[in-house]
């Protein structure tokens, strides 16, 4: 057993690190590090820089633009991007829709959509959850009725992340309401968001951020050629996607970056005349999070190694999402603690020189409560672990 990266892996890390150092635009990096929201153009600007370099879709097959990196190299890449403060690659196109098309799409669909996803021509979003179907996704009610060569879609999606930027949305819809089980009768549809009958309404979060939306479908016509895989087999597609690319749900790189920032700010903050970082009580809290993150990094690498060796990983990988989000949340909480009473500041009214970063720290703590709720709540992750890994 050897827990260290090999010489080749270290060389690879140095290569991507130095490329990021030279190519990550400073303004985007600053926005990420200062917790400012990135708009569509900013997200796409970074996407296109990566596309030009050929690194925007490392996990794709080489013939479609993948890098040919193995699981370890892909992991190193993700971690270096996060450590550098790069904007996230929006996952809905590259990681989700494209993976579905690669696995289940027709040749025509691959040719039509994959290059546009790669180049960032279309901004993709995800239409899964509905008001009555969150954790119980299979109970979804948005229907698509076949009329000749079109589907007529009616219903509502919710929590559509960045839906207000969306050019296209991939949706789970019900095509057979008579099916004996909820999981049957669902189909996977690609929908152009410019189609008449689609309304996007913002859902403002508790920190006043506009990230998620409701999307309403009122007699929206979708050509049948936008059906992916077979009609009524959409659940197979959804399950494939849920099991795919879960090696980065721990967000180790981003947490390492935030922990470093936290250490710095705690070292600069004085409490009773001494750096807060030297305060034993604060140090205990900080150290516990740091140790948990160190352990999770090794756990994550064990999963990555398993993937490289065997090509598959077990359902225990849910633990990366559970513990990873708990660590992210703990760090936002410690950052708030460092600010102390100043964490109460939110937005200026009549205030020259208001410190926007200060105003964003508690807001980020509030916002990050979403991480244990989204992408399969941590309760659902524990259900998966109990059922699939422990056989309970």
């Amino acid at each position, binding site marked *: 057993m050897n827990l260290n990266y090999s010489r080749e892996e270290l060389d690879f890390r140095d290569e991507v690190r130095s490329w990021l150092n030279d190519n990550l635009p400073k303004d985007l990096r600053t926005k990420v590090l200062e917790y400012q929201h990135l708009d569509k153009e900013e997200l796409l600007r970074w996407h296109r820089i990566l596309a030009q370099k050929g690194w925007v879709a490392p996990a794709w097959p080489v013939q479609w633009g993948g890098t040919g990196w193995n699981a370890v190299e892909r992991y190193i890449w993700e971690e270096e991007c996060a450590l550098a403060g790069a904007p996230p690659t929006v996952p809905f196109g590259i990681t989700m829709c494209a993976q579905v098309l690669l696995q289940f799409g027709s040749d025509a669909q691959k040719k039509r959509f994959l290059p546009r996803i790669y180049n960032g021509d279309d901004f993709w979003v995800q239409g899964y959850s509905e008001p009555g179907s969150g*954790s119980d996704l299979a109970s979804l009610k948005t229907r698509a009725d076949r009329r000749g060569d079109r589907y007529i879609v009616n219903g509502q999606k919710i929590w559509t992340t960045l839906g207000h930027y969306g050019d296209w949305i991939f949706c789970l819809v019900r095509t057979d309401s008579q099916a004996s089980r909820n999981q049957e009768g669902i189909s996977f549809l690609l929908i152009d968001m410019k189609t008449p009958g689609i309304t996007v309404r913002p859902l403002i979060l508790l920190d006043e951020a506009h990230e998620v939306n409701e999307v309403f479908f009122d007699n929206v016509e979708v050509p049948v050629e936008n059906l992916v895989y077979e009609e009524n087999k959409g659940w197979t597609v959804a399950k494939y996607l849920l099991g795919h690319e879960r090696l980065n749900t721990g967000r180790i790189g981003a947490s390492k970056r935030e922990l470093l920032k936290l250490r710095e700010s705690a070292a600069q903050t004085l409490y009773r005349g001494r750096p807060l970082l030297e305060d034993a009580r604060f140090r205990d809290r900080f150290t516990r999070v740091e140790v948990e993150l160190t352990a999770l990094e090794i756990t994550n690498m064990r999963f990555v190694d398993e993937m490289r060796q065997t090509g598959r990983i077990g359902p225990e990988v849910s633990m990366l999402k559970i513990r990873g989000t708990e660590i992210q949340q703990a760090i936002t909480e410690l950052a708030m603690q460092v600010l102390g009473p100043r964490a109460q500041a939110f937005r200026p009214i009549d205030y020259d020189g208001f410190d926007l970063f200060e105003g964003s720290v508690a807001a980020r703590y509030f916002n990050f409560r979403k991480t244990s709720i989204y992408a399969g709540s941590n309760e659902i992750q524990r259900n998966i672990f109990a059922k699939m890994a422990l056989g309970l």
Partner: protein
Amino acid sequence: MNFQYTEEQQLLADSIARLAQEHYGFEARKRILQSAEGYSPEVWSRLAELGLLALTLPSDQGGFDGGALDLVATMETIGSALMVEPFLPTVGLGARLLAREGSDALRAALLPAVAEGRMRLAWAHDEAAARYDATRIEARAEAVSGGWQISGQKSMVIGAPAADRLIVSARTAGAPGDPGGLSLFLLEPASVGLTMKTLRTQDGQRAADLSLDAVFVADSSLVGTEGEALAAIEEALDFATVLACAEAVGAMKYANAATLEYLKTRRQFGVPIGSFQALQHRLVDMYIRAEQARSITLLACSRVDAAGRGAISTAEKMRAVSAAKLNICDAVRHVGQEAIQLHGGMGMTQEMKVAHTFKRLTMLGQQFGDADHHLDRYAALT
């Protein structure tokens, strides 16, 4: 032993509950937050009519000589209704301090006006580098002919934009961290040399950072004894801290009730999600937290009142206050986080009151000392 409210306390509890119901519904609160004032002058005058602004004032100044325990029901309702009225800075800090330390002239000029709802106060003591330490004050006051000249920075003064008077601490001697040398002054917000930079807080209140550049106040504006204000500052902070604890208890009660209702009505997998044991147990733990928090808050309130009568030592009172705030800091974190988690995505949206309760609970944890600060203070007094 008797944990029931007296008839008078119950009447007050009922009347503020009614006030909250009629004037502080979720939609009404939204309008109040967006208003120019950032609080409701109408509700403020009703608080005065009900006698709640006068309850803890001395009877020779239009008050009722009440203590912290008498305000528990009021603070719980302020918490459950998420009121943003400047009650804590006015009644919990400013009036408390003036009643105990102010000259006869200052008391007569200000306290009856507080009782009648004509005088809002703000507490300009904290500084950005002080971080919960009441002694780490850098602002200075120099004696000049006929009064004092104050210079320095004050941080996160809650309620300052709506305040008619500010109570400002400054050093007349000593260095930051010294217990001696602190003095208190009463200032008009419009004083020459005083700049107020206003902001919204995370939980929807209005606050300001103050810059004082050689602000002149007359000798008559000195509150208490020159250079010996620390004990008075700590007394007022302890009083306000236990009131904040009671506010947190009320907010937790709302969060728990809202979460219970959600678990009963939200259905997934064909059943209410409250039928899942994994969630039931978590809600039970939230209820236990809130009850424990209420118990230790009641204890701290009674200790504050006992110390006010001279029945127990200041140290014993301070220990009880830190015990309560420590427990509250842990409880607001636990209950707030779980309330959001059990509401799922809905709890993350601005449309749900519970999201705002979570933010208020979190900020109550940051105010008047965090858990570590009170752990330290408790340990040092044991």
